[in-house]
């Protein structure tokens, strides 16, 4: 099964975030440019929000990857929930300060002030909806003091929308919203991914009808698309091994797209 024609494309659609796999898509690279510009402006906090699976973590990782070539930037991809730990980790990684004492906010600001860096260091916080409001308040104070510039990503579900409004609306100085892809963008996403990995033959199999079906099933969501294609190619691997006569190489079978959608729960049957 592993040397199947379809095992490589299948693994391309594993749901992992790696800046090297970043694909340029119209609206996404626009947003990325905005994000990069915001970081260079004298802002205190930048918010990147959008529904789950719209590529926030991907953009944040890419930003980290690109910025770290030129400046001090630290990424917190898994939230550090404990306040003391949070300040400690930041102090250590940004100011090179490994304190023995408890790290209070005041102490943290003192340490930062003593260093008087020329550029405000940048900290990227993924999944910010998981931080408590008390910790969020401290984060705000730190950025108000211009000790650190934060770039924050946030889920945009209805509940979190409220948090976003309460917490950030007046305090965030730039916010950027990511959205699901259009049919055209999703096609570019899939094709670019396949072509990048030299899966030309498989890229040839996707026609416009296939793409319409995939977009209507996933609503253009990148994560849902990854899941759908992962199980679609798993199906192909299975058929290739067990029923090779049922394979067609000139187009993707709608039936198999729908079966993959049933498997991932996009269709209820």
């Amino acid at each position, binding site marked *: 099964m592993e040397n199947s024609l379809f095992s490589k494309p299948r693994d391309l659609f594993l749901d992992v975030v790696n800046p090297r796999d970043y694909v340029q898509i119209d609206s996404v690279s626009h947003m990325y440019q905005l994000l990069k510009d915001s970081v260079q402006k004298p802002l205190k906090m930048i918010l990147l929000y959008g529904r789950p*699976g719209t590529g926030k973590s991907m953009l944040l990782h890419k930003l980290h990857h690109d910025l770290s070539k030129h400046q001090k930037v630290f990424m917190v991809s898994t939230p550090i929930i404990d306040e003391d730990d949070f300040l400690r980790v930041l102090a250590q990684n940004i100011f090179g300060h490994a304190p023995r004492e408890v790290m209070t906010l005041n102490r943290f600001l003192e340490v930062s002030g003593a260093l008087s860096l020329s550029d405000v260091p940048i900290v990227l916080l993924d999944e910010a909806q998981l931080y408590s409001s008390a910790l969020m308040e401290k984060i705000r104070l730190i950025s108000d003091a211009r000790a650190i510039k934060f770039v924050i990503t946030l889920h945009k579900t209805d509940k979190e929308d409220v948090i976003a409004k309460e917490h950030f609306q007046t305090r965030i100085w730039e916010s950027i919203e990511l959205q699901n892809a259009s049919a055209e963008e999703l096609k570019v996403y899939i094709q670019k991914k396949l072509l990048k990995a030299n899966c030309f033959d498989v890229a*040839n199999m996707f026609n416009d009808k296939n793409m319409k079906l995939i977009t209507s099933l996933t609503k253009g969501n990148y994560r849902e698309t990854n899941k759908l294609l992962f199980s679609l190619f798993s199906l192909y691997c299975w058929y290739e091994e067990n029923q090779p006569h049922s394979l067609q190489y000139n187009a993707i079978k709608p039936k198999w797209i729908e079966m993959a959608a049933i498997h991932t729960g996009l269709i209820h049957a």
Partner: protein
Amino acid sequence: MLDIKRLERRWLKYKIKKFLPYAVGVIAILILGITTFFWTYPEDSKNAPKVVTLPQKLPAEPVVQPIETTVLEPSMEFVQSFQGTPPPQKAQAVAAYSPKPVQRQVYSKPVVETFNVPEYTPPQPKVLTPAPKVSTNANGISINRDESKLDIDELQSRFKENSNANLGLFIARYHYEHGNYSEAYNYALKTNTLNNRIDESWILFAKSLVKLNRIDQAKKTLQLYISQSNSDNAKGLLESIDNGSFK
């Protein structure tokens, strides 16, 4: 990991469910048609109950649409439920025929596996809008839109390096879809020289020729290819060029 057999059964169930409203609609219209036909027939219309038995003749009717073949069975129950009731009134029957079933809603349940169980709210109309909505002061940032489209130049230079027939085919297709028929012709030809057994490269080549108004050459190419391969696609294309349905 994948239980294909079970998945296939679930898929079949899903398809039947999805097409049931159509089938019901078609049958309702058939019943309506037949009943009105007999109602307006003076001799038979005196005997109303006769009408009720008519739906049983349905399976013999040859007019059923092709896709309904798999779904006819379950909908017969529906037909039987009509028996004993008076002939359906026009308004009812029309209501039963809903040309667009609620198929969209079938997909909307979220399956997202993160710990805080984020929710997909049901389909939003804005999802499909292509243009990015920028909520901030986009002070004159203009990005090169073409840069993030599929970079065809890059693919073409890759093709120069690796001469991969599948990549050639991809590029030919791209150009054909974008109306660059002479480029499509070029790449179909290059693909074909690398591997002349790819059906689609012949097809694209011939189609591009037609678009470039070189119809005779297109036909000759197809005839040649058909004589070698017996390709059904090629035959189909040749036929539609001949009868003018492909232009």
